[in-house]
């Protein structure tokens, strides 16, 4: 088969960052091609170049054997290249069908939404996707939005589809759905470039794998015959331990105690939740996304009102305390939505580092910020958590997705918490960083601190947690001790069944 795409010697220089350094990528027609690499390795940059969003500093792109210049997404779309971005490019206030046809050159002056909506629904049906074309994007779940993005690209005639970390925000069920669609697209002769940090996914669904390391491309390998360990080593350049070592389990006194907590909830309600997390343990919260995990965290951190019940932190009644009061109990919070709750994109890294502590000494004195101290601590955190950035003056929003997460994590873990609340802490992180974060969380536990870990990745919860609470529709279905860990049993509880 002839390659549909050849990218040759692509170089992209950002101010202070060489994001792509002579990258070569060849993609066969009708294949699913994985692009892997650590956070900041340059994957998104390379794909943005292919999609015409960034202009390469130098290099050549051949599409179907012919050299083409892609200076804007318009050209990319004309050539049949579609992209689903790491952060979705959908307009929440507009309807599905308005988003789908937005900016299409073939649109009539007076829109004919009805015809497009019918054609779009028919296209969705072909991939067993049911989508209401007149629903507003803001009312869709993340998984549904992603399906709209994929269909949108296909509707506009994409032959080559770029999926930038599509599975990072999906539940396991949604991932299965996505893979079905990808397989069907492949059978229809379409080509897919798939970016993911999850080794298992890549080895299941992809034909060929190209790894980027520090902006350079490594020779491609077929996924058949490659092992997870080999792949991990290619990415990080050293052996990676895919398992975590934990010290012995010696839980101490209670750090967080929830007694029959109810909330009305902005994001779903809590229904009679009781929990107890002790020193020196990791309590994992398992459950399908949207079953009250957000509400649980919001009630503890003072972001949502508790209507009934009590929350104690280290014995103090913190029911309906303000977020600052909670944080001052040495609670740290790694939020699920980092853009909304974890960081300010338009602020520099060093400013992001003090979002929680700016009012305390020695960060400030007499109301004046102590920049020297702030810069020193920021430098230290950036170094310790390997945030890839030219300097700490860089805006938070300019960091690659994974590095933004590391920045938030670094800030929260370096506050020396007694209780660490971590929601999807490795979302979007590469395996090297995932390993590091897992080590950090276990280190907190081994130091005798309490960790509340919320994750939709069952594997993650199973390896890290000492006890697992399963949530379903705002309730705790049960709390399992280590010896009771059993995938089928947890799976049934996640679906709301309890024997």
């Amino acid at each position, binding site marked *: 088969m002839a390659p549909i795409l050849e990218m040759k010697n692509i170089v992209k220089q950002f101010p202070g960052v060489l994001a792509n350094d002579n990258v070569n990528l060849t993609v066969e027609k009708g294949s699913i091609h994985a692009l892997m690499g650590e956070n900041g390795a340059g994957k998104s940059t390379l794909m943005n170049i292919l999609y015409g969003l960034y202009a390469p500093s130098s290099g050549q792109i051949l599409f179907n054997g012919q050299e083409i210049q892609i200076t804007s997404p318009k050209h990319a779309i004309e050539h049949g290249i579609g992209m689903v971005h790491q952060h979705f490019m959908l307009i*929440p*206030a507009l309807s599905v069908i308005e988003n789908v046809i937005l900016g299409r050159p073939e649109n009539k002056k*007076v829109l004919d939404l009805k015809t497009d909506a019918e054609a779009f629904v028919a296209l969705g049906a072909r991939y067993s996707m049911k989508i209401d074309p007149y629903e507003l994007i803001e009312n869709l779940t993340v998984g549904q939005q992603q399906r709209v993005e994929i269909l949108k690209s296909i509707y506009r005639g994409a032959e080559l589809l770029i999926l930038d970390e599509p599975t990072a925000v999906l539940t396991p069920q949604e991932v299965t759905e996505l893979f079905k669609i990808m397989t069907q697209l492949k059978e229809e002769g379409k080509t897919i470039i798939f970016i993911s940090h999850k080794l298992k996914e890549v080895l299941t669904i992809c034909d060929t794998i190209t790894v980027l390391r520090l902006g350079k491309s490594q020779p491609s390998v077929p996924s058949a015959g490659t092992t997870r360990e080999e792949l991990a080593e290619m990415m990080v350049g050293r052996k990676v331990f895919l398992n975590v070592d934990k010290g012995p389990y010696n839980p101490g006194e209670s750090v967080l105690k929830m007694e029959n907590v109810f909330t009305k909830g902005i994001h779903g309600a809590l229904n009679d939740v009781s929990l107890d997390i002790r020193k020196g343990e990791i309590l994992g919260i398992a459950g399908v996304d949207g079953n009250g995990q957000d509400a649980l965290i919001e009630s503890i951190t003072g972001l949502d009102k508790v209507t009934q019940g009590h929350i104690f932190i280290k014995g103090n009644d913190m029911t309906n305390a303000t977020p600052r009061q909670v944080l001052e109990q040495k609670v740290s919070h790694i939020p699920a939505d980092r853009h909304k709750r974890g960081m300010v994109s338009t602020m520099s890294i060093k400013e992001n580092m003090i979002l929680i502590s700016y009012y305390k000494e020695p960060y400030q004195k007499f109301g004046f910020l102590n920049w020297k101290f702030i810069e020193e601590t920021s430098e230290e955190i950036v170094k310790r958590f390997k945030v890839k950035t030219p300097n700490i003056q860089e805006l938070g929003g300019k960091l690659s997705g994974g590095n933004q997460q590391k920045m938030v994590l670094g800030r929260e873990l370096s506050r020396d918490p007694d209780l660490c609340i971590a929601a999807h802490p490795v979302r979007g992180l590469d395996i090297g960083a995932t390993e590091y974060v897992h080590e950090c969380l276990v280190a907190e536990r081994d130091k005798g601190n309490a960790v509340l870990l919320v994750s939709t990745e069952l594997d993650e919860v199973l390896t890290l947690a000492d006890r697992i609470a399963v949530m379903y529709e705002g309730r705790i279905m049960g709390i399992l001790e280590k010896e009771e860990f059993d995938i089928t049993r947890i799976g049934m509880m996640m679906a709301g069944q309890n024997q």
Partner: protein
Amino acid sequence: MKQKKGLIIGIIVLVVLLAVGFFAPDNIKNTLASFIAQDLRIALPLAIAAAGLVYEQRSGILNLGAEGMMLTGALFTWIGTSLFGGNPWLGILVGMSSSLIMALLFGFLVITLRSNQTVIGISINILALGLTSTIYRVVQTMNITVNAFPSISDVLSKIPGIGAALTNEVPNGTELALTQIPVIGNFLTTIFSQNIMMYIGIVFIFFLNYVLFKTDLGLKVRAVGEYPKACDTTGINVFKIRYGAVLFSGLLTGFAGGLLVLDIKTFVENVTAGKGFIAVAAVIFGKYTPIGAFGASLVFGGAQAIQYLIQAVGLKAPSDLMNMIPYVVTVVALAGFIGKTHVPAALTVPYTKE
């Protein structure tokens, strides 16, 4: 759904008006009719300016310089009218060109140079106030005659064939044949006796509403003000759309300023007296739609027209207090409404490509 609510309110208002027209005693009928006519006259410039501002804000640009652009348009309409021997059509074109230049400056600063929209908007107002006052002092000795736009009855009477049926000859011109309708004839005539621009303007506002929500261009404008980066990825030129919206809005604010001058047939310093800001308020109160902004303008216009109503019924109130009414209504309306409507997500956020 949202638009249905507006429609229902509109229908209720119409029914009430007709009921008054049919059944109320003559003096109430006359007062109400002249109140409505007055309200429409005050509302039209506000609504035209607001319609342009709706497009501008929908594209992500907050133009607080509308007041200044309106003022510039007013002055140059006045000058232009005299240059063209009192012709209001050519005069208002001159006014629109002047505000277009202002808009071009504004657009260059906030779109290309990405300056802060609030700061630039306020600066435009200060610039315009100084500029118009200075130029006015130079030219005020000129002998300026301003003719108004022709009235609807004058225009209709000239239509061959049906003109005579639609209008009546009266001693000093024409009047609408509506007078012949029994019971509510006079009531309707008072309301509908407007100049031709009132009719053109209202049709235009409905047309703009249609364009914004039913056409490809309108969709692009709405999208650019929400998430410009996403628009970029679908191949839309964000800068082009934003410039287009700013310039178009500039034309309409100048036009609105011109209407003020043509209504009172002269220019005075600061003739706009905050109407540009009230137009910005009408955008918000009207939920960022041209028709909504028109409705809001009628509310604000009504607040001003009510002064005449109060005088007409012979109520004695200090004039300073009465002059406050429109501004108080604006503040109250906004206080009740702000935050309850969806504001374009990228409003006031400059766009950078990389």
